[in-house]
């Protein structure tokens, strides 16, 4: 029996995907505009199973936010503070040690480190930070500093970008998180994050990182003021760079949370928004191996459902997520490994614990 794809516009896309043809901008827009949610999911699931069969990944990880002091002050952020604000902080190396030692008995495979652009912290702080983490967790992968932070580090290190990257790599950095891309549109940037690294530079930094043999992720923050066309354009820009470097590992659509931000009038993303972003990403980003359903942002229930809509990864167990929770996320701050496995297997998939590079543990 043929699957009942109700939206006729999806049938052409379905045929293209089956025959391995690349989707174009028009197809991307049609995917986002379709109300045939299960039809969209069905096509994405085909592409997902072709790569990963029945496997669904997760990682045992820990988040570390070293400072919330940030000069960018993006309108969508509830985490950042100015220096001297109530609650503003920058972790000392002793703080870092104690946060890591608190969970030293757990089999943490990845430390995810991101923070604000704190003008008080010298380049040596970042090197020390990585070295400190590496010393306490020699076997964990250090996934640290978004391209926006790397851009900042290149400015304060007094070295060119390439040398800055090698210094970080030498200290123990081995992977780059995908944050800070937001939506790669000048219109959106001017309105929401005027001070942040512009998209051309974000891509340049990613390219340099990939050339230095560092793997990175990529993200898109959706559900604020961006248009469907801007989303598709963002994905196309990522796809082009990936064609060049092959250095991206996973794409992670990030659902915007408005609470406690300057955009608090914007309602939350819906399940249809979230699932279509997963499905469209899976189909447009045909050169990305992994599409993550980030449960912190869309909730564990929908993240589980997303495994049938193109996602192959539920991200991590985390334990103490801060950034999205400051913006009102209602999800738990962490999931146990058993809960993660149960979510995956009760959705009909095979749970696979992975390291940062998707090697099976």
């Amino acid at each position, binding site marked *: 029996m043929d699957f009942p794809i109700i939206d006729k516009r999806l049938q052409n896309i379905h045929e293209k995907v089956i025959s391995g043809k690349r989707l174009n901008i028009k197809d991307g827009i049609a995917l986002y505009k379709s109300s*045939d949610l299960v039809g969209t999911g069905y096509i994405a699931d085909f592409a997902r199973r072709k790569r990963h069969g029945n496997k669904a990944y997760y990682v045992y990880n820990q988040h570390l936010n070293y400072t919330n002091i940030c000069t960018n002050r993006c309108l969508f952020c509830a985490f950042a503070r100015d220096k001297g604000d109530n609650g503003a902080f920058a972790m000392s190396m002793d703080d870092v040690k104690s946060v890591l030692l608190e969970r030293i008995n757990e089999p943490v495979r990845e430390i995810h480190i991101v923070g604000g652009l704190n003008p008080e912290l010298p380049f040596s702080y970042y090197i020390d930070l990585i070295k400190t983490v590496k010393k306490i967790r020699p076997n964990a992968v250090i996934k640290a500093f978004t391209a926006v932070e790397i851009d900042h580090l290149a400015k304060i290190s007094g070295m060119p970008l390439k040398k800055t990257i090698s210094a970080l790599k030498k200290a123990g950095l081995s992977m780059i998180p995908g944050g800070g891309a937001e939506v790669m549109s000048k219109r959106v940037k001017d309105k929401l994050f005027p001070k942040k690294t512009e998209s051309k530079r974000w891509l340049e930094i990613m390219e340099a990182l990939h050339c230095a043999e560092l793997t990175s992720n990529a993200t898109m923050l959706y559900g604020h003021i961006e248009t469907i066309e801007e989303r598709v354009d963002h994905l196309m820009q990522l796809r082009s760079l990936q064609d060049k470097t092959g250095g991206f590992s996973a794409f992670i659509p990030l659902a915007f949370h408005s609470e406690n931000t300057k955009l608090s009038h914007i309602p939350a993303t819906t*399940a*249809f928004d979230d699932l279509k972003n997963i499905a469209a990403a899976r189909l447009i980003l045909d050169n990305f191996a992994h599409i993550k359903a980030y449960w912190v942002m869309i909730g564990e*229930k929908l993240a589980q459902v997303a495994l049938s809509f193109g996602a192959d990864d539920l991200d991590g167990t985390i334990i103490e997520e801060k950034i999205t929770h400051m913006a009102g996320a209602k999800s738990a701050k962490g999931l146990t490994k058993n809960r993660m496995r149960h979510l995956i297997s009760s959705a009909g998939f095979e749970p696979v614990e992975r390291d940062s590079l998707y090697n099976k543990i």
Partner: protein
Amino acid sequence: MNLLDQAVSKAASNKRIDFNESLSLLNEADTLLLGGLANKKRFMLHPQPVVTFVIDRNINYTNVCVSGCLFCAFYRPVKHKEAYVISKKELKLKIDEAISLGGTQILLQGGMNPCLDLDYYIDLLQYIKNNFPIHIHGFSPPEIAFIAEKSSISVNETLKKLIDAGLDSIPGGGAEILVDEIRKKISPGKCNSDMWIEVMRSAHTLGLKTTATMMFGHIESSEHIIEHLLKIRELQDKTYGFTAFIPWTFQPENTKINRVETATAVEYLRVLAVSRLVLDNIPNLQASWVTQGDKIAQTALAFGANDLGSTMIEENVVAAAGVNFRLPQKEMERLIKNAGFESVQRDCFYNYINRVVAI
């Protein structure tokens, strides 16, 4: 052709599926395929892309209950300091508020309170009907069976008296799982499954419309779920008195069954889709945002559901079990539209009301 293929092909061609076929769909079919089939069935039954909702308030007239269900966090014993029976003053406030918020009905349910007799219920209904222009959707079958037994009159007689006093329709609660080996374990004090069906049969015969529910995700198996659906389908073939089916998942917090893993979102969506396929004679399928939250409730609109239930100005029973989702009317309408449907308010009989027709 194997059983699953046979089930899929029958469901896709709008043919009735039997026990084994239904079971193989629930246990083996791909989740998206179930969604696709249920969605197709939904559009066959409701060709218009409309999703309905009702504005109502749950009023729990008492929390005293002798049923002792293991899954319930709401009930209190007679002498408990938190035990209550609602006062008329409080009732009036609640109904006035519901009407001022555009409410068209109240869902009137309570515990099996041994201190209340038939006269109490008759007086309660008459008081509401005499004072407020509002539909009373009240008393699930276990309450009706309990009132009948206490008054030593038949279910049929009890229903007649309640209808005379103003009862307009009956909610499908207390069905849990309509298989006695499960009921005996989780709700030993509640009427058995035959009695639940009997109350509904009598009600339908007397011209009352009712809904039907199913609470799953505790100790039942897939077989029990299908058996439940088929019992409902069988009665519906005879009476056509069910307006809607509402499956929802057990919530464990503060209850005596706190050790099971709750049903996950995917399990919920699968049961929902299979319900749409098995219950080919029940027109409406309701998504349960109260137990699933707004995201899965919206997703449910692609898995066979055509109704988002009530805005529930007040809900106490599920909230007592630690789940506290809110869904104001505006947000409900936004979710419906965002999923590509027209959002239409309905009454208890699923008639459209206050529909804004674009010209």
